[in-house]
């Protein structure tokens, strides 16, 4: 169990390509940190540098207080679960899990090895499969064997490299909870790489968002959701993704494609002399005005808009409203769309409404939103001009307290069970 510290880590390949551009990250002992970002952002490279399969071009990596830049993977006492499991096909499940123990010749007696393997198998419910070969197991079982191999060593930290991306959606959900349970139970520091923001939000104590080798923001999932520091983070976190609209400033009003919104003096001051900004509103912050109580309607902005396509999912309804974007911000938004692995087919507003709504495609919908939930971004730098440092700090402190409490509870449960 150890803390991992990354200081200004840089990775440059032989041909000059910079995969990681100076990332600094502090991972506390027992923390579950997720590295998330679109493909090519350097998250897997960063993970491989932590485990030692890639050389670190510049920067310092410390594990448990020791500098490990030059140590071989075997000396770092870490355990890794690969994306495609990497199980030894010629060994049974038992031998696969026992492999790391057998490499340390003389350290463990045969009974100790068996005991450890069986404990790992029990944690992951693999007791019935110990004598089978990987070729005869399902995807989820193979994944659990890979995890078993990782936990049997009592390593300082666990590293996961997109372990769930090869599983189908339902299994992914089940395995996610398994991983969360396992981490809480063992209390080991974990670094988890994924491109799926749902996994990032649900599993992590803290999430580090990466883009093109640079760290955008490190915060709790709630911190990233409520106080994203820039356009990229805001667009990456949240499903369906945040809507980005051009906003024209006229004195104390902001003109959006479908409504005019009054802006507070504070905000007007922050915006300086800008004429045009990018406004972000999450789909879930819209409501069907017809279903709201009278008292609430006046606290926000109401507007009507034509709905092009609607998707009813049972628990909610997605309504798609196309709009014309401003050419000044079109380039920034297109670039953002590409970075987020999007297709960028057309500009449309996605609105999430409750399932009782009568809005259907072709309708003129009567919608409401609260301008206080709106986020305003600088069209050139992408910076979130409405970022509230105080609120972000409070959220993070709450999150840290929650994490410690949850860990203590899990450890107490473990002791009680033993």
């Amino acid at each position, binding site marked *: 169990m150890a803390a991992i510290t990354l200081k200004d880590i840089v990775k440059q390949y032989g041909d000059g390509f910079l995969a990681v551009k100076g990332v600094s990250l502090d991972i506390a002992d027992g923390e579950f940190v997720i590295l998330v970002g679109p493909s090519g952002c350097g998250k897997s490279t960063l993970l491989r540098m932590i485990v030692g399969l890639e050389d670190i071009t510049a920067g310092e990596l410390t594990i448990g207080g020791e500098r490990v830049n030059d140590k071989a993977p075997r000396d770092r006492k870490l355990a890794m679960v690969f994306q495609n499991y990497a199980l030894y096909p010629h060994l049974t499940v038992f031998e696969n899990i026992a492999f790391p123990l057998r*490499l340390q010749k003389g350290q463990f007696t045969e009974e100790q090895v068996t005991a450890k393997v069986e404990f790992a198998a029990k944690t992951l419910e693999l007791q019935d499969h110990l004598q089978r070969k990987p070729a005869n197991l399902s995807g989820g079982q193979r994944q659990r064997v890979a995890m078993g191999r990782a936990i049997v060593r009592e390593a300082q930290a666990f590293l996961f490299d997109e372990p769930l991306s090869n599983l189908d959606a339902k299994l992914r959900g089940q395995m996610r909870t398994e991983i969360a349970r396992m981490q809480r139970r063992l209390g080991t520091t974990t670094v988890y790489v994924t491109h799926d923001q749902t996994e990032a939000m649900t599993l992590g104590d803290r999430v580090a968002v990466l883009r093109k080798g640079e760290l955008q923001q490190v915060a709790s999932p709630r911190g990233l959701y409520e106080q994203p520091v820039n356009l990229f983070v805001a667009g990456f976190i949240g499903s369906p993704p945040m809507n980005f609209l051009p906003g024209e400033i006229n004195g104390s009003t902001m003109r959006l494609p479908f409504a005019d919104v009054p802006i507070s003096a504070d905000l007007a001051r922050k915006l300086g002399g800008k004429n045009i900004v990018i406004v972000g509103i999450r789909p879930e912050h819209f409501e069907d005005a017809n279903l709201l109580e009278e008292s609430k309607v006046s606290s926000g902005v109401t507007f009507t808009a034509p709905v092009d396509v609607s998707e009813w999912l049972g628990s909610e309804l997605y309504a798609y409203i196309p709009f014309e974007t401003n050419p000044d911000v079109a380039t920034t938004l297109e670039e953002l769309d590409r970075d987020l692995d999007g297709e960028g087919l057309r500009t449309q507003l996605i609105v999430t409404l409750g399932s009782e709504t009568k809005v259907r495609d072709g309708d003129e919908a009567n919608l409401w939103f609260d301008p206080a939930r709106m986020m305003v971004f600088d069209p050139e730098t992408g910076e979130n001009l409405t970022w509230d440092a105080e609120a972000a700090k409070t959220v993070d402190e709450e999150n840290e307290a929650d994490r410690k409490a949850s860990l203590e509870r899990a450890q107490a449960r473990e002791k009680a069970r033993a």
Partner: protein
Amino acid sequence: MKQLSTRAKWAWALITIFVLAYALFPIVSIFATSFKLPSQLNLGLFWPKTWTFVNYEEILAPGGSAQTLFLSSLRNSIGICLIATGIAVVLATLAAYAIARLDFPGKRLVLLTALGVSIFPVISIVTPLFNLWRNIGLYDTWLGLIIPYLSLTLPISIWTLAAFFRQIPWELEQAAQVDGATTWQAFRKAIVPLAAPGVFTTALIAFFIAWNDFVYGISLTSTDRARPVPAALAFFTGASQFEEPTGSISAAAIIVTIPVVILVLLFQRQIVSGLTQGAVKG
């Protein structure tokens, strides 16, 4: 796969029989010849009029005219080919691992040289080699044959094993390294068991290439100290000046071919077994 119609099945059966007959006819013919009496060789019959073991006795039993010649050449062949195969496989395993996993300057050069060496005509090297071996004393020795045989077996072994190693996913070694293995341990425990079918195939191919060699065998040896079987067969003599030793040669050919066929049949299962299925997803 849709079921073949009866007509199609008959057609395929006929073609198969034809191909088998065409391919196996010479071997069956030699097999038949080896059981014929030398005096009855020219009778024009396919199967022996009288089945006899006299040809086999000639070459195997003590007192047979060709026995010392044949048995010593068999011993030479087996010894030289096994040693050449062993060395080639060990060296090729190490070379193929480096070629499949690492990127080093001169990698392409190594592969192209190997290819060039294997397609270079042997006959043009034989005369200078004969002179050189005589000068340094390797003429008519086992080592004098093992070294040229390495030039025959190494290139194909390197190419075959490199293809096998490329199929084994790199993650297995990386997982072994993270689990605490040194590079050598990772190679030995994770890769070698998976490469075993590849190594068997390569050893088999290398062995056959060495075994079938005639040019080196006949040019670089002069006595039964080092003469291998293909070369020895050329020296068989019949009972008199006018009698061809066809019978003994056929018997020798059968003795030499059958073990090889058995080896292939035995190892065929290993090669086809597909050991790496299930290790890695996708």
